[in-house]
């Protein structure tokens, strides 16, 4: 394995190894750029994954201290778990469900299309769908997305068949097993989906794309990529000219290390990336790095989410097979006549009995709760995912009190639902329930949002430096050799799962960085 010297100032340091960081690292390594990738979590491989929800949670989830605040119910139910994301090599590509959808054209220009929305802080992306489409093409080919590149769709499981039958009865047309980064046939050295379930616990067959066993080993094979697990980055340092020069991190023994860098790319997700920039405040940058706009940490988005579970007279066994086994896209359109801006998708979801007990109605107890749980084998379930409104005050800040084990201030994640989010969620709850009732549901359970899995915004992309943190290539407006490479770049959240867009942006950014390095621009 390649090892770069800590005083080698020719390397690109990437903080994070997920969809953004992992992809960027491999793309740069393939182009001959030397990369040091720092990952806060350990390196769990496929053989380490366990089909057991709580045990897997302990193994993979980011459970370091965080604080949630605001009027969202997650702050009440899970005050120290605002997000369910992964702290392990591969980041959240280890536990993502695999849904790989492109933004729609209008979702790149919501300020223009939606107009002024009271209380929201809408902005158009500095790029369009046409700009990103060629990179989406490359991302889909890389991930092996079903229903693209002549790759067949996955077969539908029981959970999907229930949702599909109800959707057809309601007249929905765009119903399928979706575009998934899960092999429906062997591809890219990985086998086909075995319908194991437990997609959230790490794919035991490797059929689902994760940077852990695709991008990262491919990058390492070039000799240009070194991954350092258990490396928690504390701050980024800069010189007198304001260029970043090094990254300071705690290694697995807790010892402080300093890795010099020509370029630093931050890809720790939308909670840790702004936290790192804020924790890197200095005399020259008293409000944190790249924060002359005051926008670092702001416009945090997490999608309008919720779930609908329904019980039937007869068994479903929804947990068998892929977790996100299919999708309804008819409500994803922008159609303000429904009483809200933007749209939402309905995607199947299933969780095992232990998580169902914890998440069906957090805090609930007594017979109405236990009778719902007893319907478990007869349940079908869907997840609702829609565009939420970026708001200035929905933001990640450094908590004034809480510190992590290294003594670093932790992220305080503040979120208030916008009236648009609430109107959309209520619409989605009604439609979800109607779908299941159309095929005989005896009861439906509108289920409150889980801790956030889709974390976006907080270092948003903007044409003008005063409106956001990074430019069209994810390069910070303030510091030429500092980049943001994850979903925190998102200017809007769209009605779809974010990973494909994060990957497309990372491939594009790698091209930009390698070109700029070659031209000696950076």
């Amino acid at each position, binding site marked *: 394995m390649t090892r770069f010297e800590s005083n080698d100032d020719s390397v690109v340091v990437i903080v994070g190894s997920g969809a953004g960081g992992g992809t960027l690292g491999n793309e740069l390594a393939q182009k001959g750029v030397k990369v040091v990738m720092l990952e806060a979590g350990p390196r769990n491989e496929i053989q380490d994954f366990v089909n*057991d929800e709580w045990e897997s949670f302990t193994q993979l989830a980011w459970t370091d201290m965080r604080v949630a605040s605001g009027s969202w119910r997650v702050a009440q139910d899970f005050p120290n778990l605002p997000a369910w994301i992964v702290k392990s090599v591969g980041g959240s590509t280890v536990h993502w469900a695999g849904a790989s959808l492109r933004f729609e054209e209008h979702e790149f220009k919501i300020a223009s299309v939606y107009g002024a929305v009271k209380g929201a802080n809408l902005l158009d992306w500095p790029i369009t769908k046409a700009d990103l489409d060629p990179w989406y093409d490359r991302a889909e080919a890389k991930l092996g997305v079903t229903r693209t590149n002549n790759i067949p769709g996955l077969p539908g499981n*029981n959970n999907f068949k229930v949702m599909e*039958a109800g959707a057809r009865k309601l007249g929905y047309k765009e119903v399928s097993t979706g575009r998934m980064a899960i092999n429906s046939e062997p591809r890219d050295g990985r086998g086909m*989906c075995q319908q*194991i379930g437990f997609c959230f616990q790490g794919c035991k067959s490797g059929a689902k794309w994760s940077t852990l066993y695709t991008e990262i080993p491919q990058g390492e094979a070039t000799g240009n990529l070194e991954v350092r697990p258990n490396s928690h980055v504390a701050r980024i340092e800069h010189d007198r000219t304001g260029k970043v020069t090094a990254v300071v991190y705690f290694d697995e023994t807790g010892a402080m290390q300093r890795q010099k860098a020509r370029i630093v790319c931050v890809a720790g997700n939308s909670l840790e990336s702004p936290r790192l920039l804020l924790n890197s405040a200095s005399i020259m940058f008293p409000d944190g790095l790249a924060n002359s706009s005051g926008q670092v940490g702001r416009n945090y988005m997490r999608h309008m989410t919720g779930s609908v579970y329904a019980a039937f007279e007869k068994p479903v066994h929804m*947990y068998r097979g892929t977790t996100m086994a299919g999708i309804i896209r008819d409500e994803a359109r922008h159609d303000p006549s429904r009483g809200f801006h933007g749209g939402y998708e309905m995607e199947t979801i299933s969780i095992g009995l232990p998580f169902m007990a914890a998440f069906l109605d957090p805090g609930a107890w007594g017979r109405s709760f236990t009778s719902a749980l007893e319907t478990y084998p007869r349940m079908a379930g869907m997840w609702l995912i829609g565009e939420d409104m970026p708001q200035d005050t929905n933001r990640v800040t450094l908590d004034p009190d809480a510190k992590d084990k290294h003594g670093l201030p932790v992220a305080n994640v503040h979120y208030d639902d916008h009236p648009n989010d609430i109107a959309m969620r209520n619409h989605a709850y009604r439609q979800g329930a109607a779908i299941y009732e159309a095929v005989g549901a005896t009861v439906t359970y509108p289920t409150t949002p889980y801790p956030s899995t889709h974390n976006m915004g907080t270092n948003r992309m903007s044409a003008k430096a005063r409106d956001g943190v990074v430019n069209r290539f994810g390069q910070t407006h303030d510091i030429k050799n500092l980049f943001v490479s994850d979903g925190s770049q998102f200017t809007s959240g769209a009605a779809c799962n974010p990973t494909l867009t994060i990957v497309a942006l990372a491939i594009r950014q790698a091209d930009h960085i390698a070109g700029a390095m070659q031209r000696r621009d950076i």
Partner: protein
Amino acid sequence: MRTVDPRERFSRRFLLKGMAAAVPAAAIATSTELSVSEAWAEGGALASSTMKTLVKVARDIYPHDFLGDLYYVNAVKPWNDKAAVDPAVKTMLEDGVRRLDADAQQRHGVQYANVGWEAQRVKLLHDIEKTDFFKRIRSDLVVSLYNQHELWKRFGYEGASAEKGGYINRGFADIDWLPKA
């Protein structure tokens, strides 16, 4: 379609976990339906009456009539160990149970565990819902009860599947009662 047989064969280890060593292992190893001796509640930091009340509270919080007491015993037993190493936990539990018993005495003239109807006991629990005692018992229980692999099949949940080859040949798409789409 392939359904799940809710009958579970218990491992000896699981049975022993919930029972005190005072119970002859041979007596339980042969039993198929479980009758839990009260001996499990003896020993440890907490009085046996406290442990028994906690089991009753656990069942009243998450009542599943098809589950024997053993599952609830296993779910609350770790509190006895926590109380042994942390005096604050011991006090929290003892005070919580004392309060419940006092409320029950006042309203029904008996201790909590002897209040006759579940609905009456649930009313008593609602009165303490905001207390640290109740919140900690409930939030611990939602994991310690439902994370017992031994009860998953009772709920029609099959648990781990990777080592069985997933569900690709085991009924992932075997639903047979839906109307034709």
